């Protein structure tokens, strides 16, 4: 279990990282290394140059704009999990981060690395798709922005430019009154999930649901949203939630593997999506407005 040999560079700026990427077609970015280093050790990945972006200060910032919280690609998952700004404005991500690996992998693993790696069961990717996050890559001098709902196209496959460096992920801020739910089923605590679901309901000041977003992960090649707009015209009672999720999930393609059948995964995901929506609803019905 030893990687092949490679060169190693430690750029201080995004520009330098992009120059290095452009200089070598077999270069890879090294962020937290929690997915890349296992692939190197198993020799599934044989880059000739690793570009360690941990020393680029701009990539470790969390910035609030009027509409979004922009998380730098190199923000470690443990830092994001404890960040007050994320707990307040992207509570769904805070909930999801609890399920991402274990404390030692969160201490190293990054937000950007998880998005770029695009594991079908990645919780951060599921939240990005559910909320419609904006994913920004730098190629040379140009920024390219992608809508998370169109970014993931297969297992470990995205539409990202091969010579690009992911710089930040912008998650839309919640409305003042909002409820969230995140659930997954995994063989071991915090391990990769067999099925996962995320939900967020934004309410207006009168307590009516404005937007309802639900996504499911781990069951197909990439995380996907369920179409539940039909629920906007209901009072979010259990029957309508169950019926809407049941119909919506038939549209999702699921895959088998060693651990669980496609059939089982779909059933579990539907159950988790219902539970996530119920939790999102009940958080608001029980909690006073902010």
């Amino acid at each position, binding site marked *: 279990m*030893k990687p092949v*040999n490679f060169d190693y560079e430690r750029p201080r700026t995004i520009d330098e990282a992009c120059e290095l990427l452009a200089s070598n077609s077999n270069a890879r970015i090294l962020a937290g290394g929690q997915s890349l*280093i*296992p692939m190197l050790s*198993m020799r599934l990945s044989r880059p000739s140059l690793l570009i360690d972006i941990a020393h680029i200060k701009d990539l470790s910032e969390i910035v609030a704009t009027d509409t979004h919280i922009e998380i730098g690609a190199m923000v470690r998952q443990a830092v994001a999990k404890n960040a007050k700004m994320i707990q307040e404005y992207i509570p769904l991500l805070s909930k999801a981060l609890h399920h991402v690996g*274990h404390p030692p992998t969160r201490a190293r693993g990054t937000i950007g690395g998880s998005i770029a790696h695009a594991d079908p069961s990645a919780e951060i990717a599921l939240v990005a798709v559910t909320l419609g996050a904006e994913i920004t890559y730098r190629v040379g001098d140009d920024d390219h922005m992608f809508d998370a709902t169109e970014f993931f196209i297969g297992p470990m496959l995205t539409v990202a430019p091969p010579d690009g460096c992911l710089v930040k992920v912008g998650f839309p801020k919640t409305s003042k009154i909002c409820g969230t739910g995140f659930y997954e089923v995994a063989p071991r*605590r915090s391990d990769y999930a067999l099925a996962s679901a995320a939900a967020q309901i934004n309410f207006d000041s009168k307590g009516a649901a404005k937007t309802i977003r639900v996504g499911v992960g781990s069951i197909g090649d990439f995380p996907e949203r369920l179409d539940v707009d039909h629920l906007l015209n209901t009072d979010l009672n259990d029957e309508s939630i169950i019926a809407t999720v049941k119909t919506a999930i038939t549209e999702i393609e699921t895959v088998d593997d060693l651990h669980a059948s496609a059939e089982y995964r779909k059933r579990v995901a539907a159950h988790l999506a219902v539970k996530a929506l119920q939790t999102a609803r009940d958080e608001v019905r029980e909690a006073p407005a902010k």
Partner: protein
Amino acid sequence: MIQVSIEVNGKTVTAEVEPRLTLLDFIRDVAGLKGTHAGCEHGVCGACTVLVEGNAIRSCLVLAVQADEQEVISIEGVGGDLGRSGELSIVQDAFCEAHGLQCGYCTPGMVLVAEALLADTPNPTEGDIREAISGNICRCTGYVQIVEAVMLAADRLANRNYKSKPGQPSDQTLG
């Protein structure tokens, strides 16, 4: 080859290394400390856990070049005075007393995740402890006595009359 300088248990170890050398192999083969165990070498077992800048991390998933200029504490350094006093840390002692180990292969990793947990969370619940050790595999104990050992250590740390951090001298009286 790249020159790196890593402070291992308070002692700076400087060497020319290949970028592909993991921190695990650096600690074992360059620093010569064999207490950090190599289990799977691809991030699933936790046997290789050490503290880097105070955080428990998997040393097989960090390259030595990434740990350049950083502080590492391995199992040899958790006892009093960075392991030099010859005394076990409270956590190590609790593992012995609660029979938190059998073959001992997972133990250095288990002790270090416990040290990291207790440094941040002095009064952990059983749930906190299970979460902290969730990434570490033990094929022998069935985990129950490991959880008991960490609870015992938390209890003793809460009731001790001196303060210490992993690797620090244990003779400072609490002010």
